[in-house]
């Protein structure tokens, strides 16, 4: 394992949410308590309103990445540089403009989901 893993979801149902930027999947509570490991600048743990804004319950499929740097799937999904953890294959909504702006300020890449 390349780096410390992100939190592992504690449930598998409707409580799950995915970060709109890095697609990390955790429960609402986990985001509330620890934020997103890949996107700490969203400061979800400090501002709980943010959780709803930058995460979504609406995502498609789950991929547990044990070894991001050596996983082809992670590379393909462009999550190869994130912390090990559970991600989703695709989210359907983009970040709000405000949040995209934060990404820009933080100089982190954000790729909105493609409409297929």
């Amino acid at each position, binding site marked *: *394992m390349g780096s410390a893993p992100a939190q*592992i979801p504690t449930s598998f149902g409707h409580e799950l949410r995915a970060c709109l930027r890095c697609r990390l999947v955790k429960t609402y509570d986990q985001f509330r308590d620890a934020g997103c490991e890949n996107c700490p600048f969203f400061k979800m743990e400090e501002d709980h309103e943010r959780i709803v804004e930058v995460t979504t319950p609406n995502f498609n*499929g789950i991929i547990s990445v044990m070894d991001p*740097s050596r996983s082809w*799937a992670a590379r393909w999904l462009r999550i190869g540089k994130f912390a090990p953890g559970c991600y989703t294959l695709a989210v359907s909504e983009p970040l709000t403009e405000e949040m995209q702006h934060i990404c820009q300020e933080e*100089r982190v890449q954000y790729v909105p989901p493609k409409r297929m």
Partner: protein
Amino acid sequence: MSHHHSESDDDDYSYDDDPELEDEEEEEEEEEPRSSRKKRGRSNPDPVGLRGKKRKPSGFIEHGEADLGAEDVGRHRHFHEPASFRSSRVGAEEYLDFMQEKYSNPRAEYEDDGDYEDGEPTHVDQQALLPSVRDPKLWMVKCAIGREREVAVCLMQKAVDRGSDFKIRSVIALDHLQNFIYIEADMEAHVKEAIKGMRNIFANHKILLVPIKEMADVLSVKSKTVELARDTWVRMKLGIYKGDLAQVVDVDDVRRRVTVKLIPRIDLQLLADKQEGREIVKKKAFVPPPRFMNVDEARELHIRVERRRDRMTGDYFENIGNMLFKDGFLYKKVSTKSISTLNVTPTFDELERFKKANENGEIDFVDMSTLFANRKKGHFMKGDEVIVIKGDLKNMKGWVEKVDEENVLIRSDMKGLNNPLAVNERELCKYFEPGNHVKVVSGTHKGSTGMVVKVEQHVLIVLTDTTKQHIRVFADHVVKSAEVTNGVTKMGEYELHDLVLLSNLSFGVIIKLDSEAIQVLKGVPERPEVAIVKHGEIKYKIDKRMNVKDRYKNFITVKDVVRVTEGPSKGKQGPVMHIYKGVLFLHDRHNVEHAGYVCVKCSSCVLSGGSYSGADRIVDSFSRLGNSKPPVPPSPRRFQRADSGYNTGAGGRHWSGRGGRGQDLLVGAYVKVRMGPFKGYRGRVVEVKEKTVRLEHEAKIVTGKLDLRYTHTWFAASTPSFSNMGSQTPIHPSRTPLHPCMTPMRDSGATPIHSGMRTPMRDRAWNPYTPMSPPRDSWEDGNPGSWGTNLLYPPESPYSRAYEAATPGSEWASSTLGRSYSDAGTPRDANNVPSPYQPMTPSSASYLPSTPGGQPMTPGTDLDVKSPDIGGDAETWLMPGILVNVHKAGEDSNAGVIRDVFPDGSCVVALGDRGEGETVIAIQREVRLVCPRKNERVKIVGGKHRGSLAKLIGLDGSDGIVRLDDTLDVKILNLDLLAKLPHA
């Protein structure tokens, strides 16, 4: 560079002191060739230049250099501001400032995927990531249904707990794939190790390896929601409305609930009973059909209907219980999970039903633009013809120049609009015109092709190529295509036109296959009966070869041509396609219904073509022909009078036994056309009708254009080689006259009429008993010259005019004598030239003495010239202004434009493609039409529209599809009636 790259990997993790990274680096090195190729490709602009420059400063540089190396790989593409910076190439200083700034920000390095481009990863980049043999593999592992996510998460937990001896790389649980998860690992052993002891995983089940090619497909999931917007069409997933079409009215994103409107399935009686507390007999399986709510009806049943205003929208709804109705629709709030939004393509009927709701047409076809929400990506392509259906530019037509994400750049030919305009794709619709040949690419008619005959906004009416039916399709579901297909022609083991046994023991021919049902023309001769069946209702394909007897006890086998003489299908004719239980299925290509199939009793048919039952039979019949009797075609009229007639007449089974279909011996024979516009064509005779034959040419079907005599000549002359050709015929099943391109819209004008052919002498000419039949020995001696002239065309017979002005009588005579059936420019006798302009008199004179036939010229030729028929048909095609080829004997063929036509059929032709050359006079038979090509301007030289100018917009076998200039009507006319116009 490779080294930098791996360094950058370390950088990307905030936790880079992990000892395991050492390993990783090595591994990265291995992968280098591929990734660097990819990266080099897009690490511009000018990474080398930048690197070169930044070497000069010192101190900070050492560090910067390393970083930049990595940057070169990924990072420097990520500056969001430096668009200007890059383009101006300000230089190293500024660049370094920028770098400094960037790296002074502690979080800047935090995430850098390195794989991302400035904007979106391009397609090419993604391609570069496709798996190779060195990548880990994907294994499919069976797990308990509904536990897919759970298993994936548990395996993650297990990996965290176990640490580095857990060798799998990732676990994928797809929402749309139940019962399986994918595990990414280098070896199957790793997978087995990982799943050992896992609950919900069936470890004993076989682990399947996903082929490398399919790995990317596993991961390409579509974004789940197609943005549940208002007006989107969706389908219900649950309950009694399962599968029903619904339209989104409102979306509550927070609670993930949507309000949809659908056609209620409510049993009012049941509802009334319920409300009044009566006993309800529960019929479980019963689902009420969809029906619009009729409030008055409900009230009559004493159902409480309250009209209330919705607090949120301000609209009024009829409330029954807790259900809301408006305009007859049920408005239902459902969870987003209970509707499916992907690939919802409402069928035509469904939309019609939705539309019917309000007679004022609130949901007009214009509103079908809501359909576009479900369009696939890449719907429009460069070059598509489109029309704007919304907004200021409504009804503007144009061509697609470029497609962006949502906007389509279109170019219009309107004046003053030189620049392409960007239009939202939802405001666009593909545009077609009547006459376009199209292919349906989605929907129930997917796969069919046909011609657009009418355009009603987004709805096209298409005449399909195979079934000749009109289908209504959305313009969106159609692309232009020259392809002609039968639509779906195969479904499971059944193919179009198969004879099948249905489960109720009836049988029939499959006349249409579509994605949902199979249409079968049942074997009921009394009336055409079409059954629509499901795949499962077909028991098996009947593949029996049987012989039956026709009305006159002739054996009929499959492929024989028969004519129906009684019953509802009387008059139809065509080859027999199937025989079963005394019932024949013929294919009459003129029949527009049931894909051309006709079902008849065998006893109502008369065999009319040569039998195909064996290749040898044809050969056989001709060899017998040689020593029994020349093929004097008995008059068909005689044939109908009584069938005993010829039994007694010409002895031998050869004639009588075959039902007196003497001329039908020609059927199947390979012949060559001697005269007329089809001169030189070779083909197989498919039908003999009185004095005309129908040939099937290799390339096109030539119908009824040929005087029997012409072909006969050749036939007679080439008898020695005839058997060969004859024997070949049955091997070409594809050349049976089942021409799929035949359109039912055939203009009557296109059908040649040969009524003028019945001359008083005909009976004699056709009568086998007349003394005019040639002496047998002369035939055997191979003296066709004598029999030819004697036999069919007794001198006194006034020849009727067929089709052309060229006098066939004389042509016949001269060519028979000359035996040069391939003649393009046979010298002709002056006598038969009806035109005083004929320039060839001397040549014919010199020709005559060399005639080998001993009977230089029949008096018939003289008569012929004076035949009153002359010029009647001649007028069909010579008209001033058309482009023709003038082919005078002994000269090359020249193009020219007809300037004038004389009453006798000769014409003044100005040579040259545009008629710019010298003017010559040509007789009609020296002049041939120039066959127009698609998109060329034509003049119609025959039929109802004779003289009209038109444009040839399509070709369909031997027919041309034209659009008339004056009325813009689209007509289908035989190509022979279309004359090319000279280029303006």
